[in-house]
């Protein structure tokens, strides 16, 4: 237990907490250890304000009795201890407290919350509030604003279970509840889990076999280390990051033209692969252009500030759109880095969190220097459209070639200048030089054409004036002018002159003078989610008052602190997450825990999860052998139904799918059309990336089944897989079946499965023998060459079998 004294001294030492104190709480007497032992789980422990009480108050009361001054009723603030205790709460005496009385009254005019609010308290909630008042109505500063501490892992009874600190914290919770952890998953499941979690790709059957037969206790760690070094790790992490920052290949509004940005995506992949420290990663994206002598990568990284939706439609009023862009950036930067819904303060003070209208616009002011107005004038309906400032980047080889051509061209031009006189020889010479020059210029042009444009951030000399817009109304110029500043309850950037995006990035990642500790916690929770299937707090994008406090908050704290202490080392954090015993648990729920802990909030198992859309595609391509694993490059255009873009205009769109081998690159490279996201991505819940997405839905719909069953890529992959099988496997049905399942799902079928499969295969054989002409139709789907040496009927039969295997749950599920 931490004494009150220690807590308040911690608070004093922290700059932003003093603001928080200023905002709500003066003099706190409580114990933070409540956080880990919420009374909801045991009757004798006192209630925790943050865990048990605040969520109720926030949801049911703060709307009228919370931070929003304008909407506040009777000047009462239930989020403010002083106000509440002065007006309606008598600590220790629920009977005399008006607060409790009005919750329980029968009088329809007096009852709280008022009937017309549509909000009601359950008897259980009222009982909790009553008990809390009886226990003294202790408040706590809001958990998400209390900086994390390096908590000591608790002692556990089952001492041989924990492998690292994660296990101590989790097992402690299980033991207190009387729960048992799951046994370790079988080794095949484990290595598949690692591959999908680290790379978004399946292991090879041989890798699985090797791992299963490896008795070395270090074998698991060796796999982890190997995967962390794979170039596909960055691709896997990028899929998550690109959702957060709403990366897409098109402008989003109106004509939804392509814009140039794919090098930014490659930067993200590279950054994760190179393990660029997360604070540096943050600085480069928000303010790479403001770093001293920025590298090309750092300039490309500033594409982050340009990822938002834009429009150059004829009827656009620039002033309105500048306001829209500003709001978009505030929403995104606050959600991505702070897990805060500052976007809710666009029209009024935040209803639940200490964030004001002014905070919203002050945050917007950081981006007032982003040079972007040009596109209102020069944006075209071409593909891609123009969104200056842009730069062109080349591969290192091309860069070298261009330099060489430039040298040659300069030399030739020099020689040309020296040619004087009008005699035949000189004329001949000039003609020769000119021909050479033209040749070189032509060659250079070819290389230059291979370059890729990308939007970057350039800082304007004079930033736009930013005003508070009353009620968010961009036509209203009556609001005060604001300077760039962070939300006042979280601190202040002290600086002479105007604070910049770089200052903001520093503040977001500075554990001492900024909110680095809080940022680290937001991301520790998200990385946890990526590997454990659910966050410690399930609200990955809202650590505000309406978000869910974490289970095991001390564990989350510890992860955040380690993240910072290790220099924001993402790979190290990821490794810590998977080296625990908890991660390696089987995902099969214990029967009684299905009822006692249906959402697995005690992490007594790993959570099976459906793969993200991109990896479902990758998995098919990998099994078939079609996958082209080149990292980076232009966005790719896989097959898509004809006419899918028919509602687009300015310009009208004809989608041309790639005819070369880009057709089979990974899903992360797919062209991301915001208004009409590729149907395969859409049915498997990839977001259209108009806004920040921290957690994708995982649905299971008939439309998704139709894609898996019938989409061109599924059929093509099945046919190529069949070709591979017929060429590589033995002649018998059993041998071929085994080859296929080993390659696709890394195992053999059990006896029952085999029986079902053989029945199916017999059906397929009979059906195609009867209709050999339809066999030809099936195998001709897709660009990949048909192996003419194979019998079309046999190929169709095994294509159909491959389709069956490709539609098994294991192709889309990571257990």
């Amino acid at each position, binding site marked *: 237990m931490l004494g009150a004294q220690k807590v308040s001294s911690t608070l004093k030492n922290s700059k932003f907490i003093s603001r928080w104190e200023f905002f709500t709480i003066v003099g706190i007497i409580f114990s933070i250890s409540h956080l880990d032992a919420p009374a909801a789980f045991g009757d004798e422990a006192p209630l925790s304000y943050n865990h*048990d009480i605040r969520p109720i108050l926030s949801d049911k009361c703060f709307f009228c009795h919370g931070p929003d001054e304008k909407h506040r009723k009777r000047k009462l603030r239930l989020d403010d201890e002083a106000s509440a205790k002065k007006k309606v709460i008598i600590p220790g005496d629920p009977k005399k407290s008006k607060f409790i009385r009005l919750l329980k009254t029968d009088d329809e005019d007096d009852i709280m919350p008022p009937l*017309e609010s549509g909000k009601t308290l359950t008897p259980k909630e009222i009982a909790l509030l009553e008990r809390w008042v009886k226990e003294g109505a202790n408040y706590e500063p809001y958990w998400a604003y209390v900086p994390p501490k390096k908590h000591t892992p608790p002692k556990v009874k089952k001492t041989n279970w924990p492998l690292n600190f994660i296990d101590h914290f989790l097992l402690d919770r299980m033991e207190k509840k009387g729960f048992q952890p799951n046994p370790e998953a079988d080794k095949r499941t484990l290595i598949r889990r690692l591959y999908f979690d680290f790379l978004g790709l399946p292991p090879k059957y041989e890798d699985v076999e090797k791992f299963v037969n490896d008795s070395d206790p270090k074998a698991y760690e060796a796999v982890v280390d190997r995967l962390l070094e794979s170039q596909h790790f960055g691709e896997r992490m990028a899929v998550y990051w690109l959702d957060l920052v709403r990366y897409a290949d098109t402008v*989003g509004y*109106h004509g939804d033209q392509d814009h140039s940005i794919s090098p930014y995506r490659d930067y993200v992949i590279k950054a994760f692969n190179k393990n660029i420290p997360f604070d540096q990663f943050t600085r480069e994206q928000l303010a790479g252009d403001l770093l001293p002598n920025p590298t090309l990568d750092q300039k490309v990284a500033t594409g982050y500030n340009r990822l938002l939706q834009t429009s150059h439609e004829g009827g656009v009023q620039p002033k309105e759109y500048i306001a829209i862009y500003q709001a978009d950036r505030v929403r995104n930067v606050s959600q991505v880095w702070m897990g805060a819904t500052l976007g809710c303060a666009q029209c009024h003070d935040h209803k639940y969190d200490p964030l004001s209208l002014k905070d919203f616009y002050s945050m917007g002011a950081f981006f007032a220097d982003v040079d972007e107005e040009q596109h209102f004038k020069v944006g075209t309906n071409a593909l891609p459209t123009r969104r200056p400032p842009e730069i062109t980047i080349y591969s290192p080889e091309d860069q070298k070639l261009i330099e060489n051509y430039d040298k040659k061209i300069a030399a030739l031009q020099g020689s040309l200048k020296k040619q004087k006189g009008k005699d035949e020889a000189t004329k001949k010479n000039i003609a020769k030089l000119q021909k050479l020059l033209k040749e070189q210029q032509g060659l250079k042009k070819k290389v230059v054409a291979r370059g890729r444009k990308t939007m970057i951030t350039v800082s304007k000399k004079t930033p736009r004036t930013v005003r508070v817009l009353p009620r968010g109304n961009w036509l209203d110029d009556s609001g005060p002018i604001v300077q760039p500043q962070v939300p006042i309850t979280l601190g202040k950037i002290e600086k002479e002159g105007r604070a910049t995006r770089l200052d903001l990035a520093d503040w977001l990642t500075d554990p001492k003078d900024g909110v680095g500790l809080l940022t680290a916690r937001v991301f520790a929770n998200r990385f946890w989610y990526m590997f454990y299937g659910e966050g410690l707090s*399930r609200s990955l994008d809202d650590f505000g008052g309406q978000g869910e406090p974490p289970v095991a908050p001390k564990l989350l704290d510890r992860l955040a602190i380690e993240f910072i202490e290790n220099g924001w080392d993402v790979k190290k954090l990821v490794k810590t997450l998977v080296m625990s015993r908890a991660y390696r648990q089987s995902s*099969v729920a214990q029967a009684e825990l299905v009822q006692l802990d249906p959402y697995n909030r005690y992490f007594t198992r790993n959570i099976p999860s459906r793969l993200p859309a991109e990896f479902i595609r990758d998995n098919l391509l990998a099994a078939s052998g079609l996958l082209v694993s080149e990292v980076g490059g232009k966005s790719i255009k896989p097959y898509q139904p004809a006419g899918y873009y028919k509602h687009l205009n300015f310009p009208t769109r004809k989608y041309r799918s790639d005819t070369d081998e880009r057709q089979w690159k990974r899903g992360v490279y797919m062209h991301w059309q915001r208004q009409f996201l590729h149907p395969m991505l859409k049915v498997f819940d990839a977001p259209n990336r108009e806004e920040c997405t921290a957690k994708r839905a995982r649905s*299971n719909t008939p*439309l998704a089944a139709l894609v898996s069953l019938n989409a061109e890529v599924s059929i093509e992959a099945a046919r190529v897989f069949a070709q591979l099988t017929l060429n590589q496997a033995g002649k018998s049905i059993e041998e071929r079946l085994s080859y296929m399942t080993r390659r696709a799902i890394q195992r053999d079928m059990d006896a029952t499965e085999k029986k079902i499969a053989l029945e199916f295969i017999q059906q397929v054989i009979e059906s195609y023998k009867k209709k050999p002409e*339809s066999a030809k139709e099936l195998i001709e789907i897709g660009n990949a060459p048909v192996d003419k040496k194979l019998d079309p009927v046999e190929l169709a039969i095994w294509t159909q079998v491959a389709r069956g295997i490709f539609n098994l749950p294991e192709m889309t599920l990571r257990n």
Partner: protein
Amino acid sequence: MIYPQFDPTLSQRRTFLKQGGLSLGALALGSLLKEDQLRADVPKGKPSKPGFAGLPHFPPKVKRVIFLCMAGGPSHLETFDYKPKLEELDGKPFPASLTKGQPIAQLQGAALKCQRPLTKFKKYGKNGQVISDYLPWTAKLADDICIVRSMVTEQINHDPAHTFMNTGTAISGRPSMGSWINYGLGTENSNLPGFVVMTSVGGRNPQPIASRQWDSGFLPSQYQGVEFNSSGEPVYYVKNPKGVSDSQQKNLVNFVNKLSAHQNKKFLNPEIDARISAYETAFKMQASVPELMDLSDEPQDMLDFYGAKPGDGSFASNCLLARRLAERGVRFIHLYHRGWDHHGGLEKYMKICCGLTDRPTYALLTDLKRRGMLKDTLVIWGGEFGRTPMFQGKGGAGRDHHIKGFSMWLAGGGIQGGTTYGATDELGYNSVDNIMHVRDLHATMLHLLGIDHNRFSVKFQGLDMRLTGVEGAEVAHGVLS
């Protein structure tokens, strides 16, 4: 506490509660669940928890909505809102007192002049509804429709204005009304999506329509609108691959589901149960969708009545398909006709747009009425905004986008036909009487479906999200019978 924020586990919770926690079997089956049965367990009378539980709040007047969206923004001044004053002031400067400080689209910086109505109006029906000559067929419906002349929206460009009309906000990522309604009320036919979108084109400069307009936003994706195409493949991927017959496809699905079920004996994963169901439904859809879209069982005189030619992708065909969808229990049917963006050449393009949509609209309402279906259907006609009383001349006289006053009409169950509701000022600029904001339209629509818009909310990012937002909305009782 059970964390209330919306996420996919919500449907899990619903199932879980229903089945007493014995099985998580039907996770995410969503609209496939017999939702009404689930709701029967919810105690009636008391104010329910926000969200899906306890819906409908009161007996509904209609079961479904057909929204005829005239995309691009038809002129109210040439359809339902006759302004003689504009005749008088034609070509004169438009009063600056009205336009000062107001949002304006393409006419930014231009001299603003009055533009007279570019057609004649007559009175129709028992109550003398004023309707323009461009809409002779709609005029025959004068006694069925309630004309709303006082619409107001907040977005002046097409894309955000559609988003606003569909979701109640211009911020991306929010569910559209069709998703809300299906999420709230469930579907009557598990072999079809509950929210279907069809589009047609014809007129001036068809504006793009983003799939965002039928997105389910933060609601589960099974509630998103599904686009049906009246030409080409009716639903993407609904056909078997070439060279695969129905029976081969059936064998395949059986194989997949048998193995899935076998495997799930070990894993007890509700996701796999859901997947099995999804595959079954997908296979059924492969039959039910083409059957629905195949107009060959409609008699020729019915096709002629609508003016539909099977496979032509016209608004007429879509109207006929809308009736077939309605018959099969689809809850929200959204037709878009793109071509109403009449910045110039208004007379020419009004003729084209009305020529393509007027008669089919009449046919749809009449057909529904004859079948006894209009009384439990709400039909809404209108664009994302109206057009300025001021002249614009991109290729002949036309009008710019206008959001402060425009017209729509409502018909069907619970609607007071033969009436006109609200009014704009004498120049047709501002709505001044019985103003109906888009949010009020949403509130009214939900009311007819038996939903109190204030009590239909879902937690998202910590907020109680409603279709009608936080700004307040009123049911327009004046349009109700």
